[in-house]
């Protein structure tokens, strides 16, 4: 199944939308400023609608089926979120309107700040960062700015466990800090001995994902944080895996100094085929003055008759602005809707059932797939997608074969410390029947790997296209549609 490109569908003279004729006198752009031809496709509305409907049918999505992509928290995205975010009062507000005309937006943001602080146990928060990676960047910049503000200039190293996401080290480089890799111990925790040895007065901080990318809650988390604090460093919490901790433990209580949220993971805002995300950053009170500006606050206290006036404030030692305006507001509305519907009890149930689902699935595949760390997992777990007796079969083959069973594959080849990793995160929104069917598919594939390995090597068989030639793509680098007039 191939869909022609917009340019192949184009027919000169067509148009998908008409605009009213100008009702003002004619003004002409000076001729020397006018562009040459605009090589755009020409299509009717129906051409466009059919084209994108065809494309949509070539996608796998949560609405279609089970999406156990580890570390990505592909939970169901409630439809009500899409309704609330599109309410005209939100969708049509210009970011630079006078304060008195945007009190609804500001109140929502203020409340969301309060809720996220309560959920995480932190004292202050900024909703500005656009995504998890930007939240990380903001958080590490805050750590760096904190040390610098105290004249502590030699803290240039950041410790990162070997199970971490690649963004963690990339973030440190952007902030100008040096990365030091930290090994894991035999149970998948941070290696305390190694940590002790590395920690000195050059350590700016530690970036810790907890539960980590193996799906394990670090059994020594309190000690880890104490060791870093004792050396004068701060601890950054990567909030990618917060879906395991709602109402279970608050990172602020555990001793973390900074963390980012992924509203698109934990709080059900859609992933949108790769974005927009939203990555608010929360900090302890000692770091509050470093948050990116602006932060939503009360600028005039309320009286008996009048509500307070909400507005923007700039933290005194702010690291600056990381994005235009105030954040991915539409995502904030969705996350607010979700938190409000769940309340304290509902949030705790989310994490409880996310962890229940992961452990249940783990109990179904244990024995057929090798577990690098055989412990109770949190919201996700990692298995090895390889068997010694069929060495030609790799995790990738298992992933591709799962598509034939109508499932989205788990994350593969991550974390790097597990050989042929398959990282599985079911989330709380999946029912038992779905988990059973997925476990059955994994078991069936384990059997196929031994009896008919070619079936896996050539998988997928039932998808719009089969395995694609990535070497050709990277070498030839065709990054734009073929244009008819170029022929």
């Amino acid at each position, binding site marked *: 199944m191939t869909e022609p490109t917009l340019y192949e569908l184009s027919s000169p003279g067509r148009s998908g939308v008409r605009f009213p004729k100008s009702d003002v006198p004619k003004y002409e752009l000076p001729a020397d400023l006018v562009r040459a031809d605009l090589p755009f496709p020409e299509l009717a509305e129906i051409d466009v609608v059919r084209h994108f409907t065809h494309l949509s049918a070539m996608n796998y999505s949560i609405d279609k089926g089970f999406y156990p992509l580890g570390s990505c928290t592909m939970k169901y995205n409630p439809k009500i979120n899409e309704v609330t975010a599109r309410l005209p009062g939100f969708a049509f507000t210009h970011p630079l309107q006078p304060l008195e005309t945007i009190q609804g937006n500001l109140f929502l943001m203020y409340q969301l700040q309060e809720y996220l602080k309560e959920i995480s146990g932190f004292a202050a928060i900024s909703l500005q960062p656009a995504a998890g990676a930007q939240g990380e960047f903001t958080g590490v910049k805050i750590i760096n700015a904190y040390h610098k503000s105290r004249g502590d200039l030699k803290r240039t190293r950041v410790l990162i466990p070997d199970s971490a996401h690649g963004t963690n080290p990339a973030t440190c480089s952007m902030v100008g800090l040096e990365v030091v890799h930290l090994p894991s111990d035999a149970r998948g925790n941070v290696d305390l001995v190694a940590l002790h040895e590395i920690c000195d007065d050059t350590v700016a901080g530690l970036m810790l994902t907890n539960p980590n990318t193996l799906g394990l809650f670090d059994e020594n988390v309190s000690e880890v944080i104490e060791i870093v604090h004792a050396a004068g460093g701060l601890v950054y919490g990567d909030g990618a895996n917060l879906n395991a901790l709602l109402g279970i433990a608050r990172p602020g209580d555990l001793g973390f100094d900074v963390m980012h949220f992924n509203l698109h993971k934990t709080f059900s805002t859609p992933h949108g085929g790769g974005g927009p995300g939203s990555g608010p950053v929360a900090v302890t009170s000692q770091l509050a003055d470093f948050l990116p500006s602006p932060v939503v606050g009360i600028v005039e206290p309320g009286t008996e008759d009048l509500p307070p006036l909400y507005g923007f404030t700039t933290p005194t030692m702010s690291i600056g602005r990381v994005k235009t305006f105030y954040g991915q507001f539409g995502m904030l509305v969705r996350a607010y809707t979700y938190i409000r519907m769940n309340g304290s009890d509902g949030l705790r149930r989310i994490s409880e059932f996310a962890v229940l689902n992961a452990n249940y699935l783990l109990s179904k595949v244990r024995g057929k797939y090798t577990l690098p760390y055989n412990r109770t997992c949190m919201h996700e777990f990692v298995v090895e997608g390889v068997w010694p007796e069929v060495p030609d079969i790799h995790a990738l083959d298992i992933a591709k074969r799962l598509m034939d069973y109508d499932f989205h594959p788990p994350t593969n*080849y991550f974390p790097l410390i597990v050989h042929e990793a398959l990282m599985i995160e079911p989330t709380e929104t999946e029912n038992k029947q779905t988990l059973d069917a997925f476990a059955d598919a994994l078991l069936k594939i384990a059997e196929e790997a031994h009896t008919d390995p070619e079936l896996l090597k050539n998988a997928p068989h039932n998808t719009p296209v089969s395995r694609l030639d*990535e*070497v050709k793509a*990277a*070498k030839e680098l065709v990054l734009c549609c073929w244009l008819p007039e170029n022929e």
Partner: protein
Amino acid sequence: MNTPEGLKYASTDEWLRVEGNVATLGVSDYAQDQLSDVVFFEVTVAVGDEIQKGTIVGTIESVKAAADVTLPVSGKVIEINEELANSPELINSDPFGAAWMIKVELKDASEADSLMDATAYSAFCETRGH
């Protein structure tokens, strides 16, 4: 795995062919195998540059991985294989021949002596598995 005799090998998987005070640099068969299909190669130094031992002199990218090429000795760059950027797949097909990367005039010939020989490097690769 092919590991020709007569070359010197670094623990970062580069090989060095020393002829007089000139050394030719490339990456080993083991390295290209680990990377799989190479789609891009770039030299990040220029002829005439004085390079300290341990400096990154090039970058290799495959579809799934990227690797830096490090010069394991000190010296001055005297020649660059300009062809290789156009045909980076040579790194897969002929790592010890057509896929040579740069030539340097050695600053201290004895630096190369501390690198591994073919036997030691083969054993080293063996310990890392595949």
